[in-house]
């Protein structure tokens, strides 16, 4: 019924390798993009933007980044929180050092700085593999948080030790600071999400993406067929950290507005983003979005349902929240170990044949 296709009429390689080979799919994605850019900003309330859309978009970037490293290149990392902190603190230092520099470039520069730090902490990956590497990246997490806490230069020696984002504008509209209109911050983040998702898609289907996947599937075999592990692994670390740096930068400057490293970029952030990509689906762009949406929305929905609708005490709801999130994670893994993206693929396959499955 849906997703109908009849035969393979493609006549060029360009057609054959397009992102959305099915017309309906393509139209849906286009409609979603139009909706996100042109309609949503006008119907946004403060609550929707600040409590749901912004964390979703920003975590989607982080999830894309981690998915490049873990999902495509197979290097499990638990340093996401630390790398996000690098992005955030670079943004703060650049914002205060160069007040006239456009925030757009500051965010990109922060990403580049984070990429450098990511390469540095990615070096052990050349020797260490699997869970050992995951735990090794925790060294980055703890060290970076400790450093941003300890070295006064990073927070301009302020008495409070907190960093807060001053107001910066893009095209005359405030993007950061308290006076930023919700739709502006939303669009600002959306532009990055859109551009980075686009970039991911094209990176992962190109030469570099294929070499990442070769390393993921079996690194020795990849080395034998001529994939350079040093360059491949470090490029994955660099690009992944670039994404994560941008998400950390937006997280601090646009979303929170003020941050303290231990609270905002602690180890639980690293785990959160990892959950997102595993629930969403490793090695899938759609999965990064689905996972981010799942982890951001679920607590909000549970809270609305139990606390506001049924009227239970908030602490019971919070405990139930843990139980349900945990239960759902296990449930999803049992039903579909490859995440929401795989679930979506299955549904799509079913839809193609529906209503005549045979």
């Amino acid at each position, binding site marked *: 019924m849906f997703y109908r296709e009849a035969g393979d009429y493609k006549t060029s390689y360009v057609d054959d390798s397009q992102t959305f080979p099915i017309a309906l799919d393509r139209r849906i994605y286009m409609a979603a993009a139009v909706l996100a850019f042109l309609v949503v900003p006008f119907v946004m309330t403060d609550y929707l933007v600040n409590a749901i859309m912004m964390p979703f978009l920003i975590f989607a970037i982080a999830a894309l980044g981690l998915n490049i490293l873990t999902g495509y290149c197979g290097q*499990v990392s638990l340093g996401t929180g630390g790398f996000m902190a690098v992005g955030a603190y670079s943004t703060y230092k650049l914002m205060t050092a160069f007040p006239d520099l456009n925030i757009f470039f500051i965010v990109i520069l922060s990403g580049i700085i984070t990429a450098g730090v990511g390469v540095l902490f990615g070096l*052990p990956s050349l*020797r*260490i*593999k*699997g*869970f*050992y590497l995951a*735990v*090794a990246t*925790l*060294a980055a997490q*703890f*060290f970076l*948080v*400790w450093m941003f806490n*300890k070295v006064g230069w990073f927070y301009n020696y302020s008495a409070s030790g907190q960093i807060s984002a001053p107001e910066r504008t893009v095209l005359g509209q405030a993007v950061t600071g308290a006076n930023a209109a919700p739709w502006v911050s939303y669009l600002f983040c959306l532009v990055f999400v859109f551009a980075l998702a686009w970039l991911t898609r094209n990176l992962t289907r190109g030469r570099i993406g294929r070499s990442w996947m070769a390393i993921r599937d*079996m690194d*020795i*075999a990849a080395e*034998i067929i001529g994939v350079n592990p040093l360059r491949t692994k470090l490029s994955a670390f660099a690009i992944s950290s670039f994404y994560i740096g941008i998400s950390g930068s937006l997280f601090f400057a646009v979303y929170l507005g003020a941050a303290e490293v231990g609270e905002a970029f602690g*180890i639980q952030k690293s*785990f959160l983003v990892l*959950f997102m990509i*595993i*629930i969403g689906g*490793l090695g899938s762009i759609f999965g990064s979005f689905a996972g981010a949406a799942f982890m951001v929305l679920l607590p909000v929905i549970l809270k609305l349902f139990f606390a506001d609708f049924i009227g*239970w*005490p908030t*602490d*019971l709801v*919070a*405990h*139930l*929240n*843990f*139980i*349900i*999130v*945990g*239960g*759902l*994670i*296990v449930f999803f*893994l*049992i039903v579909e*170990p490859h995440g929401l993206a795989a679930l979506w693929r299955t549904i799509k396959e079913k839809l193609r044949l529906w209503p005549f499955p045979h």
Partner: protein
Amino acid sequence: MPVELLNTIEVIINGLMTGVLYSLVALGFVLIFKSSGVFNYAQGVMALFAAQTLVGIQTGQVPFAHLINAVTGMHVSKFGFDLPSIIAIILTTLVMIGFAWIVVKVIMVRLVNQEPIILFMATIGLAYFMEGFGDLMWGAELKTLDVGLPSGGSFWIEDVTAQWAVEGENYWGMYVDVLDIWATIIAVFLVAALTIFSQYTKAGTAMRAVADDHQAALSVGISLNKIWIMVWSIAGFVALVAGIMWGAKSGVQFSLSLIALKALPVLMLGGFTSIPGAIVGGLIIGVGEKLFEFWIGVPFLGGATENWFAYVLALLFLVFRPQGLFGEKIIERV
């Protein structure tokens, strides 16, 4: 002996003792990883849950009191009895065995043959679940745990070592916590018991067979389910011991589950599959982080370096031995 040397020795001894406490947590990880290839993220939460259950049983709390009150409007909180520690520990062990049974029957069986990362994720889900479940069952308030273990610095050691200092120096003697000594003794017994169990009993041999090769073990008629339930039960008991030791210091509260983070560098260093590795790794990490804080951290870096230094130390070891000190050598074939 000069006071500086005595101070250094004191730091080393305390580092060793702390290391034993880290090892206790790491031991639970190793047991499960070895036998089922699962990196059990929930080990820390298991320690919290075990300690909560122990205190709850010991002081006669009504489980799920808050939920019952909210739903039915009743006001229950306590049964009004206090149980002796030993009975409470036995009952808690039974609870942990029941818990192991549920985990294996509900989760592990359905995830056989999945990739390690998926199994890891499942234990994260489990950790979330238990965190909420434990709080729902026993309440999130801080609880005091007292099973009658002594604590505080040992006078005897202080008095003896005080005389070692150079004449005329104002030296107070070395500080060693009695609780740490007890923890060490218990850890030694635990490891000895585990070794005897796995080397000399039938069940232990089966456990080792499963750890070696699932397929082969299955084909000679060993029930994977039974072995897994057994291993998770033992890990639950180890978690209980760790929970008691750490909970005696800090009270039973959420942060108890964070001790898992202290066990990770130990695991890395010792190797995920080796029980002696967990012990030696714990000792190295304990001494290493304490010495670094004493020599370099506090004088030059402003202190609080222990958290990250443990990981960096483990990382340094790993660069030279990627499978950990005692881990099985990774043989890669194409």
